[in-house]
């Protein structure tokens, strides 16, 4: 196991510290149950010895031993149960704690974390990796605790009965251990290879299935199957080897155990013939040897489980160790601003190599409408990220009503903006809850007012359950236009002084857009608005148009001013109507 793995495991173990009481109980349970299980064979041997032969069985001894055995076995089973119960409790509670921690951690991370990482991967860390750590803990802890106690206890008992035979057992157990280690080592690389090919096959299948339309359009089915079959054949070859060697662990340990069994039987018999031990001792020993070998057998399984737990733990700690965004400013009451926005010598870039916005200045009076236009990927959305403080500036300041936004709490800043994005986001819940998202305690009247103001009321009323209609699966039961109307209603309810509309209609067909446009116009009245759009027709009316190109702001002005400039804007504008041929 490499060093990083053991660091990760140590950190996992630290979580056990939160549950000291549980841990003490499991330790106690382990000691009692193991000692009980070790006492069993000793007394069985004694009982057999008490059955001297025909007519000479000492019944009183036999019965008192059997009574003792009954108690011992009861204790054994009961404490085995509590051991499992407490280790389960520790590991499930740790899983719960880890999930809590990751969740509250990612809520303190900057938006760039969400933008840069695949969401599927993050979900998988939450679900699969936490499960792997928790499984590893159950297995690891229960086996470790009982294993250690068993090894020491069994050696003690065996030495007590016969030191000579103990040596045989210890050596054979070591044999089991090295055999298991050898096979795991050997198979681990084989399994890794198999997993690699499975990953390749998985990736190819994903592409091919998701891209079936293209495959059919290009008459590529045959080639695609050939590719798949080739990867599959590789997987077969690796799979047979990995599975064969992997499945040898059990027979091999069984071989060592059977050999041990025979040797103990033979040596024990010889010693019994010489008169050094009794037949009952042989019986006890045969049982001890298998008890003693068990932790060594299991060590392989525990080892693999710990490896995968450590790998998962690393992925979890990676998130928990990420740098958080700071939010020192704090004020009790939320100020509501007038909506004057000033960009003061603003510079920003996502990475150092590509400067994006350089020394940008703009002053927007309350209630004005600003449009941002430009090519795809020109960095229009960047301005939104900066206004909402999703990303931090490199240089300069953004002021709202002459207050630097970095001096106010983020919540206060964002509370002053209403934001409508291209991707409508609705959460699982009723329509009412979704509209009241920004103001959970809003009463029904205000919610309906907001819906009416955004033209959503009429379609909501027509839904089978009206405002109580449950939205599932990010709103799969609603049309794009309906979803967008709901997000507008959401903003109408909180009535913010400033608005951001980022490509809010680009997923909607133009006839539906016409209806939504009306709602937008109503919403923008009297509010400082920032509008980003592809369709130039929607932004002609703006008080100020910012034209961006390759991340830079190249032109600023009203529609007519910009057309007269004959620059980028007029180029963009007229390209809509380029005569073909």
């Amino acid at each position, binding site marked *: 196991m490499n060093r990083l793995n053991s660091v990760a495991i140590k950190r996992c173990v630290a979580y056990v510290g939160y549950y000291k009481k549980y841990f003490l109980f499991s330790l106690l349970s382990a000691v009692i149950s193991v000692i009980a299980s070790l006492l069993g064979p000793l007394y069985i041997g004694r009982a*057999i010895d008490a*059955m001297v*032969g025909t007519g000479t*069985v000492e019944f009183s001894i036999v019965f008192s031993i059997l009574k003792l055995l009954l108690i011992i076995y009861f204790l*054994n089973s009961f404490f085995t*149960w509590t051991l*499992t119960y407490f280790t389960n409790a520790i590991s*499930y509670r740790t*899983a*719960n704690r880890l999930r809590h921690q990751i*969740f509250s951690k*990612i809520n303190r991370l900057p938006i760039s974390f969400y933008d840069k990482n695949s969401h599927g991967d*993050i*979900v998988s860390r939450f*679900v699969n990796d936490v499960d792997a750590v928790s499984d590893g803990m159950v297995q690891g802890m229960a086996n470790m605790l009982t294993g250690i106690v068993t090894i020491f206890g069994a050696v003690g008992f065996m030495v007590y009965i016969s030191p000579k035979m103990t040596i045989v057992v210890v050596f054979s157990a070591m044999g089991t251990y090295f055999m298991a280690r050898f096979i795991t080592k050997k198979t681990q690389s084989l399994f890794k290879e198999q997993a690699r090919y499975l990953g390749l096959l998985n990736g190819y*299948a994903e*592409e091919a299935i998701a891209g*079936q*339309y293209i495959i059919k*359009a*290009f008459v590529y089915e045959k080639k*695609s199957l050939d590719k*798949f079959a080739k990867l*599959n054949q590789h997987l*077969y070859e690796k*799979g*047979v080897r990995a*599975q064969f060697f992997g499945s040898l662990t059990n*027979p091999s340990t*069984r*071989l060592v155990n*059977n*050999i041990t*069994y025979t040797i103990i039987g*033979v040596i024990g*018999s010889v010693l019994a013939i010489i008169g050094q031990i009794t*037949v009952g001792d042989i019986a006890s020993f*045969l*049982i001890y040897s298998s008890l003693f070998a068990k932790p060594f057998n299991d060590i392989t399984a525990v080892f693999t489980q710990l490896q995968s737990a450590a790998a998962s733990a690393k992925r979890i700690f990676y998130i928990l160790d990420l740098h958080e965004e700071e939010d020192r400013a704090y004020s009790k009451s939320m100020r509501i601003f007038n909506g004057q926005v000033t960009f003061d010598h603003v510079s920003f870039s996502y990475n150092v190599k590509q400067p994006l916005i350089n020394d940008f200045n703009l002053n927007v009076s309350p209630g004005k409408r600003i449009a941002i236009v430009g090519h*795809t*990927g020109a960095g229009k959305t960047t301005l939104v990220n900066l206004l*909402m403080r999703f990303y931090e500036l490199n240089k300069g300041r953004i002021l709202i009503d002459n207050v630097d936004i970095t001096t106010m709490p983020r919540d206060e800043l964002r509370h002053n903006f209403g*934001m409508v994005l291209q*991707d409508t*986001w609705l*959460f*699982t819940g009723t329509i009412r809850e979704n509209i009241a998202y*920004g103001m*959970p305690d809003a009463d029904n009247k205000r919610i309906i007012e907001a819906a009416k103001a955004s033209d959503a009321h009429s379609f909501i009323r027509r839904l089978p359950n009206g405002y109580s209609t449950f939205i599932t699966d*990010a709103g799969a039961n609603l049309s794009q236009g309906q979803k967008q109307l709901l997000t507008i209603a959401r903003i109408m309810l909180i009535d913010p002084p400033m608005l951001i509309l980022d490509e809010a209609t680009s997923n909607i*067909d*133009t006839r*539906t857009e*016409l209806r939504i*446009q009306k709602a937008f116009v109503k919403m923008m009245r009297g509010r400082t608005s920032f509008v980003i759009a592809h369709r130039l*027709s929607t932004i002609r009316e703006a008080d100020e148009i910012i034209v961006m190109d390759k991340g830079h702001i190249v032109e600023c002005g009203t529609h007519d001013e910009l057309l007269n400039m004959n620059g980028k804007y007029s180029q963009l504008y007229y*390209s*809509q109507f*380029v005569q073909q*041929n």
Partner: protein
Amino acid sequence: MFKLAVFLKAYKKECIVGPIFKLFEAILELMLPTMMVFVINNGVAKHDLIYVLHMGEWMLGMAVLGFCCSMVCQYFAARASQGFGTTLRNTVFNHIQSLSNAEIDGFGTASLINRITNDINQLQLAVAMMIRLVVRTPFICIGAIVMSMLLDLRLSLLLWGAAPIFAAILYYVVKKSSVLYSSYQKKLDRTASVIRENLAGVRVIRAFSNVKREKKRFYKTNDDLMDNALSIGKVSALLNPLTTFVMNMVIILILWIGSYHIDTGNLAKGEIIAFANYVTQILLALIVISNLVVIFTKAFASSKRVCQVLDAVSSLPKTDNGLPEKDSIIKNCDFIEIKNMFFKYSSTGDMALSNINVTIKCGETVGIIGSTGSGKSTFVNLLPRFYDVSEGQIFIEGRDVRKWPLYKLRKKFGIVPQKAVLFTGTIEDNLRWGNENITDEKLSEIIRTAQAAEFIDELPLGLKTMVERGGMNFSGGQKQRLTIARALAGNPEILILDDSTSALDFATDAAVRSEIRKNYQNTTVFIVSQRASSIKYADKILVFDDGTLTGCGKHAELMQQCPVYREICLSQLSSEEAYA
């Protein structure tokens, strides 16, 4: 489950020989404790050292032979199960390729991949276990009981008595925990969906300062999940202690009753030791059975999921029912002709397209416009026969599309879909999909036509740049331009651009269209778009509304005659632009 057994046919030999060897190993293993009885009863009791050593040699030999037998079995099991999985995987993949988009969407891509990998792996495991353990385990169980019956019939009754108790415990724990487990799965899904919602909606959540509320929501589902896990733990923790306890009780009973038999001289000491050993073996076998039950229940669920895929009947047309090669094409007819065409996706559903009649000449540019769900994409998907019409006919070069050999028909088309899909490989690999033998000159020509040259040239590796999975390393606009170039590489007679320039700005969009027009004059081009400006200058504009064709003609004509078209144009263009 048994339906899938056909895939084992090729491995008949392995499936029969494997278990036989395993059985042989089990017999050897069962004989060991009995041999020990002889050692103790004959050797120790009679002080016969030579006999003890002699028997020891035999026992060692049996242990080694048993190991060899099980090695043979493991090998056969590995070959049969992996081979079974490989064949099944190929078959399922091939079947998936024959399904239509609707069927694939019905399953979901993620679910199909899961079925190809995880589910088939589960089945593979079940096959291996079947060969390795299904014969061995019951045999050890029954064998141990039979051997003990041979030793002492009355004592063996205790084992018979214990067996149903074992079974009852096993049944109770498995049943109880499997119910809890399925509710755990559901709760895990819910937790994951809350996380997913939070990841996707982070901007909105923060904009509304709702982090605290989302935390509360997550903590609740997470705590719910833990409670469920804890109750599973409580039940499953019972299995081991309970079965061990029963086993130990049997041992105590054996000692108790055995002591009377020894006293009366009906039993020897060695036999008691052997009995204890058999009890342990039975217990171990039962634990294996409980694991097997879990594996087979999982495999059963998996086999159902795999069979669902194999049972899905493709709604796509069969591939090779075209007419034999002959030059029956009537030259002077219209290039594409659609007559009284109706289409619906399922036999019970509503018509997606009704009564469409259009003729299109070779080399024309056809614009298609309409609101979402009006049938635009459906219409273009019918031309290369992704679906068959429900009524009416589609002719290409005077021949019904259903009479064309499918590969020949589709080779006529270059298709750029709405969603820009690229495959892992270099940019060049992707572009050569359309035509493997395209020359480098021709390749750079199509790249220029698709307006992709500017960004490809800026890449340090140019055409050799790797496209990552799903084209993650390219922007939406770049991907769209690459898919356009890919379609052009096949030098298609008919090019379909299905809303495939939505991520391009107007200038680039216009440039792509005018370059295509200039360089591909004989190609008939279909442009599906939501932008009026993209189709305004087409030779023929088709206006779809709710599955019907409400307008067909040039821009100026439609502005006069088609109210739907007029409404669309006026919503996007100023009136002087619209009427220009």
